[in-house]
């Protein structure tokens, strides 16, 4: 019998290689897979490209990964936050490369990778610095920019419940980038608060079908902390 349940965070991340592209879910603290990021720090892979909406808060999660010097490049929409001082410092010191992408283009580029789309035309960004050098085209009287897919070697996703086939549900706004990132990576590792028996998740309400998930690892339930805002 197939089981994608991983015995530990350590086991679930053992094969992340130096130079890998890692998609990391979350928007603010919601859906941020902090336990998996801590596991990645312990695992030791370096020279990573991290794709995420934000670039870390305070000194935990992504910020800790950045602080540990493991990240070569960040692809994200909103690195600057009230408590993003680790990223800010590395960026100003030229120690981390930044590719800034409008949030919807980021989500769509990740989905494109997960859906086998080679590129797509979007109006978002046209005429701005963030579309500099990109192919543009007029379609039905409006100007569009060609955007390309963003593939991941790994995706680290925080879900709520999962089963041994890798099916996932999420919790409230912690869903955000999880479903599209799970589609776009060669290996998707999902942390869940509950592992349930096969068939316990109603097939109508599964958000991420197991085909998109390679490993599921149970973590202790914790309360999502505030992050990214001025306290």
């Amino acid at each position: 019998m197939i089981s994608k349940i991983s015995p530990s965070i350590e086991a679930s991340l053992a094969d992340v290689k130096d130079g890998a592209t890692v998609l990391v879910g979350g928007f603010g603290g919601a859906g941020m897979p902090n336990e998996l990021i801590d596991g990645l720090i312990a695992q030791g892979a370096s020279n990573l490209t991290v794709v995420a909406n934000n670039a870390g808060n305070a000194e935990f999660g992504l910020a800790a990964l950045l602080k540990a010097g493991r990240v070569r490049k960040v692809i994200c929409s909103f690195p600057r936050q009230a408590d993003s001082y680790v990223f800010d410092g590395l960026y100003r010191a030229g120690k981390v490369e930044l590719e800034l992408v409008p949030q919807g283009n980021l989500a769509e580029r990740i989905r494109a990778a997960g859906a086998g789309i080679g590129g797509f035309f979007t109006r978002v960004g046209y005429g701005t610095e963030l579309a500099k050098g990109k192919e543009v085209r007029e379609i039905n009287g409006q100007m569009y920019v060609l955007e390309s897919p963003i593939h991941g070697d790994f995706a680290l996703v925080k879900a709520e419940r999962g089963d041994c086939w890798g099916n996932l549900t999420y919790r409230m706004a912690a869903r955000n980038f999880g479903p599209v990132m799970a589609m776009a990576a060669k290996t998707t590792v999902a942390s869940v608060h509950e592992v349930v028996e096969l068939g316990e998740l109603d097939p109508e309400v599964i958000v991420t079908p197991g085909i998109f998930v390679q490993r599921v690892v149970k973590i202790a339930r914790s309360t999502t902390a505030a992050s990214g805002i001025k306290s």
Partner: protein
Amino acid sequence: MSYAKLSREQLAARVAQDIPEGAYVNLGIGLPTLVANHLSPTKEVFLQSENGLLGMGPAPAKGSEDFDLINAGKQPVTLLPGGSYFHSADSFAMMRAGHLDIAVLGAFQVAANGDLANWHTGNPDDIPAVGGAMDLAVGAKQTWVMMELFTKEGACKLVEQCSYPITGVGCVSRVYTDHGVFDVTRDGFQLIEAVDGLSRETLTSMIGVLIR
């Protein structure tokens, strides 16, 4: 003749007044967030949040915050009965394809051709961050800007051409300010109303770009 600029709350109330019942609306982070507090409880408006919420409700009571349920500004919110959750690609599909009726955004500058600048000061030492600003700017059926008319240094934020890096081309249709309301037309800015006690002529003369 004297006039008083609108306070931030008054400006939010002024914007709220123009949002029609049944509208799907995204309120950008910062000043636009205040609009939610001024929507009449008898006028049903659907608030969308870029991080995957539709039917966003008010802030939760102190002590019952849940940081898995936050808005685009990462502040805790609630979900109304009838609300729904969805992933980021679906959320921005909503935006990009014009399913939202109105996006209300803050701005550094708005140009006479409707160009919006609100994401980057252009200062090379600033950490750039764009979030959903560019998506919202061009996606909604109407993009409204809500801002103080002048910077702290006294520069008018309605301009002939944006000097800040732009967020979207020709995307703004209306600008609500603490001095008055302007439409962006094919022929540039048109003054819709000035605040009480401020004549159209005076207001027009305070602005360094042609106002019709």
